[in-house]
């Protein structure tokens, strides 16, 4: 019986390895192509394993093709958006989880409703609005939209988290004469550091990968973020796939590293807020 069971387990590995190969081969192919000199004409047979350690494509993409610049743009936009999304959302979530005020539940339904609005649906009016405010092609305009979109769902999830925090500490602060601001900054925020961390990473990677809004709003080449820089880069260097994939890897690696390091927490976070991902 036991023997039969372990045989069954061994058989499971065969299809699993098949799945793993299917998942990995495209990445391997990308890496190998990025490490191949002058892949203008596609090598025949295709190269799946790098033949030498050739990094000129990366240098080329990073320096000559301004990907260092796009990388910093993306880093800056994502970092600012993440901090502001979490600040605004946690403050709102605190009020929704700890205070009573007339109309609270109606307002909260408004947040729920906003979560359901697909971002693609609002693209046209957002663009027109930014044009009227003269914020097209500025990071302020881009960030305002990112924050506006990020706030409802993050407020919702953080409120759920805050509701489960113990209230005793807050009462102690109240007795000592602390006000709500003290409670929020000295108790709620420190206690929710793990949740804030998870949501920060999810928000960061969402903004890091955001494509359509940036494509619509940003016009100046120097201001491009990585996803749109990649798209336009591919348009210009149609056949230089070594360079294209070197640039792609520059865009992908930070997110991959964060996920692999934090995978346990994040995969759970992904289960909880799968809707946040496109």
């Amino acid at each position, binding site marked *: 019986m036991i023997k039969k069971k372990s045989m*069954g387990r061994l058989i499971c590995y065969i299809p699993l390895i098949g799945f793993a190969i299917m998942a990995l081969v495209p990445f391997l192919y990308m890496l190998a192509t990025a490490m191949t000199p002058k892949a203008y004409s596609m090598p025949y*047979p295709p190269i799946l394993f790098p033949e030498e350690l050739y990094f000129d494509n990366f240098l080329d993409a990073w320096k000559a093709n301004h990907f260092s610049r796009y990388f910093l743009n993306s880093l800056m936009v994502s970092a600012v958006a993440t901090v502001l999304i979490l600040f605004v959302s946690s403050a709102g979530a605190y009020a929704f989880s700890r205070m009573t005020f007339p109309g609270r539940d109606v307002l909260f339904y408004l947040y729920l409703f906003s979560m359901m609005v*697909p971002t693609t649906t609002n693209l046209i009016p957002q*663009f027109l609005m930014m044009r009227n405010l003269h914020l097209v092609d500025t990071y302020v305009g881009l960030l305002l939209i990112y924050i506006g979109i990020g*706030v409802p769902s993050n407020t919702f999830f953080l409120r759920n988290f805050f509701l489960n925090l113990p209230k005793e500490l807050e009462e102690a602060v109240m007795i000592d004469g602390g006000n709500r601001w003290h409670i929020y900054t000295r108790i709620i925020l420190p206690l929710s550091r793990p949740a804030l961390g998870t949501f920060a990473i999810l928000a960061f990677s969402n903004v890091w990968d955001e494509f359509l809004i940036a494509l619509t709003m940003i016009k100046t080449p120097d201001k491009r973020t990585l996803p749109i820089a*990649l798209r336009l880069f591919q348009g210009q260097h149609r056949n230089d796939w070594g360079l294209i994939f070197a640039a792609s890897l520059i865009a992908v690696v930070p997110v991959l590293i964060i996920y692999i390091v934090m995978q346990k927490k994040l995969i759970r976070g992904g289960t909880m807020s799968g809707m946040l991902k496109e």
Partner: protein
Amino acid sequence: MLRKSLGSRIRVGFVQWIHAFPFIVGGLLLMSVFVLYPLFRNVYISFTEYDVINNQTVQVVGFENYARCFQDPKYHIAFRNTLMYTLITVPGQMFFGLVLACLINAINKGKTLFRIICYLPVITSWVVVSLIFKYLFMSGKAGFVNYTLMQLGVLDKPVAWLQNEWTANIVLWLFGIWKGVGWVMVIYLAALQNIPSSVYEASEIDGAGPIRRFFSITIPMVKNTTNYLLVVLTIGGFGAYIHVMMITEGAPLGTTNQLINYMYNSAFSVYDFGYAAAQAVVIGLIVFVLTLVQRRVSRDQKN
């Protein structure tokens, strides 16, 4: 409880608002200005003919933009493609995701490793993964998929995958399945871990084999998760666009467009904002109804 007078209730409410206001004002303002107001503005634009250059409404045209959705053959193709993409990638992702979850659940060593590997496509940017797929399915004998299939003897000459309507759509479907399986696997894995092992042991004693157990225990036990995934993935299918923009750009001749691409092109290539806004409303309504269904489903699950 004593009923307080209306005056004192208003006063209390006002004080409560003064306390809560600093905490909620930021979020409320951002959400209203950048999500809620655009939503209403979009509905309004959809009933008008909009002059993008001079930034003004030319005239209110009523439902004309919506009527155009019904008459426009290109829109029909985009609708058909979105529907087919959803009908194929949703069951595809769910089937492979469930199989994968069962396999990972059954093994002892390497669970985390396989989980990370299969989750890689999920976390990698859509833009980058689309570029990889475009390269994998390059025409000519040096394209990776062509090369592999020719070596295996499945094809005898290279296929121009992205130049033909149906082969290009197949590439988009494969992309959708490949990108999403890892996420479905993680969700199913969580559900599988909630099935008490006693259920399986009991059926094993009754002599049920692994396949029988899969159909008579696993599938019924993860039914709620299946319902949840069905709705969430369908919403995802209707909202997908990056892969089309990156891999085919609708080519050949718009036959691989999906709803959001077509909307985007109507707005920002043709500058037909009124028509695009109407398309956006249609997509928004579909997604909204699906989301309501999903909330219903997850509420039923909790009860």
